[in-house]
């Protein structure tokens, strides 16, 4: 493995210009993700999380002063498009495609014949708890199921790095905690590298090997905390002193940053 980990961000900046005023979205973002790690990222709203994600997905270009390295190689000009499995906040399932065809979307784009793509996707349905729903249309599914289909679509696009942007943000608390445990099981079996955005501290600590906390805008890495809770983790882990200890520390930082955002906008 190259010394730079799977993904390395070095002094990444992003400034937006409109009508003569400059807005700094990201300022000197710097971190490395090792292969196989589950990294969660939290920060106050408007801290540039989504911009950061778009940069890592190759959808946006960082400013020239920093660099993004993937598997040790510097990435420029949309190089990352097609290299990272990206799951945006909304499920973005296509209403005209069946659940099966939605799941197989990325495979089709990669050029796999439709029949083979369907077969490959169908094989994952039991594991994602969607068996029997292959021929349904998305509008017939519940929110949790739609999110699983979206996740399956991301999983089937087999890339080393999974980029998940608040995938459970729109779900109710109960479904959400079920989905978190289920995601950890899937991850334990497939062992991909995950970068997971959330604004929920419990979720960040419960899922992550590491929690990165972003500062208020302009966004930068405010703190990078290892979470050494044993795996596999069950819901019980959230009640352990170790968990609460991490939570207390992170909560103080997140609150401080949120207050900055709040007073800046007030």
């Amino acid at each position: 493995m190259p010394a730079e980990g799977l993904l390395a961000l070095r002094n990444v900046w992003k400034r937006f210009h409109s009508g003569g005023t400059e807005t700094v979205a990201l300022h000197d973002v710097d971190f490395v993700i090792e292969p196989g790690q589950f990294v969660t990222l939290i920060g106050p709203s408007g801290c540039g999380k989504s911009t950061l994600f778009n940069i890592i997905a190759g959808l946006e270009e960082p400013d020239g002063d920093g660099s993004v390295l993937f598997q040790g190689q510097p990435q420029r000009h949309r190089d990352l498009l097609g290299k990272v499995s990206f799951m945006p906040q909304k499920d973005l399932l296509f209403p005209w495609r069946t659940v099966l065809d939605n799941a197989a979307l990325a495979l089709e784009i990669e050029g796999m014949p439709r029949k083979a793509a369907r077969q490959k996707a169908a094989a994952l349905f039991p594991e994602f708890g969607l068996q029997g729903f292959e021929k349904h249309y998305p509008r017939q599914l519940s929110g949790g199921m739609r999110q699983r289909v979206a996740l399956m679509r991301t999983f089937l696009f087999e890339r080393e790095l999974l980029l998940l942007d608040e995938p459970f943000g729109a779900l109710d608390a109960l479904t959400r905690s079920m989905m978190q445990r289920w995601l950890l099981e899937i991850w334990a079996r497939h062992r991909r590298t995950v970068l997971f955005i959330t604004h929920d501290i419990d979720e960040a600590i419960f899922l992550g090997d590491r929690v990165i906390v972003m500062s208020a805008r302009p966004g930068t890495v405010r703190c990078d905390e290892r979470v050494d809770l044993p795996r596999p983790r069950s819901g019980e882990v959230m009640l352990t002193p170790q968990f609460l200890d991490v939570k207390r520390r992170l909560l103080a930082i997140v609150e401080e940053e949120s207050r900055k955002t709040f007073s800046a906008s007030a």
Partner: protein
Amino acid sequence: MNLLPVTVALAGLLALWELAIALFRVPGFVLPRPLDIATAVMENPGLYASGMLLTALEAIGGFAAGAALGFGLAVLMVLFRPLERALVPIAIAISSVPSIAFIPLALVWFGLGPVSKVAMAALAVVFVVLLNTLNGLKRPDREAINLLRSFGAGRLGILWRLQLPAAMPAVVTGLRVGLARSTIAVIVAEMLGAYAGIGQIIYQATVQVDALHVWAGVAVATAGSLLLNAVLVAVDRRLVWWS
């Protein structure tokens, strides 16, 4: 589909019609009785059938050509944005004039035969399909497009897998409005100058102050339009199969 309510409504309308004639002693040249209109059609079925057939073929031909042109142009405009900026203002300008206004020109350019009717039908549909399709193709938001880009899809892949299916409901709206406009354009064009067709039949009956046969022509034209619309509804269901 449940046809009962519409059948009842239609029967009620016909009963009201008969009642009004009986009650207010409306003379036949002002408003003929429904049964007389039906009889007038049945006395000369060949005339009305061949007239309606010609009108339908002209409307369908022009509709298909205009719809294809409008759809194709919209796709090109989405692929080459400068084309959209250049042509859409012109399209809006032309389409804001009722297409009926172009009929005299069409008759001068394409003669009294079917070509002028087909051209008018095409003109009546092309812009409404163009503008609706264009709107539909632009409906997918940035996030959905970005998702496909992140999977490595190119411009055409995004068009084929996202924009075209997403545009279909808007395309269908355009087709529905367009078909009605095409039929109107053909019939009016036939009334203003033609050798045959249902519009010409209505026109000749009007000139002869023969209200019964004007009504007969209108009734046949209405039945024909309904049939065309039913065919289009079936096509629409295939275009938007998921809702």
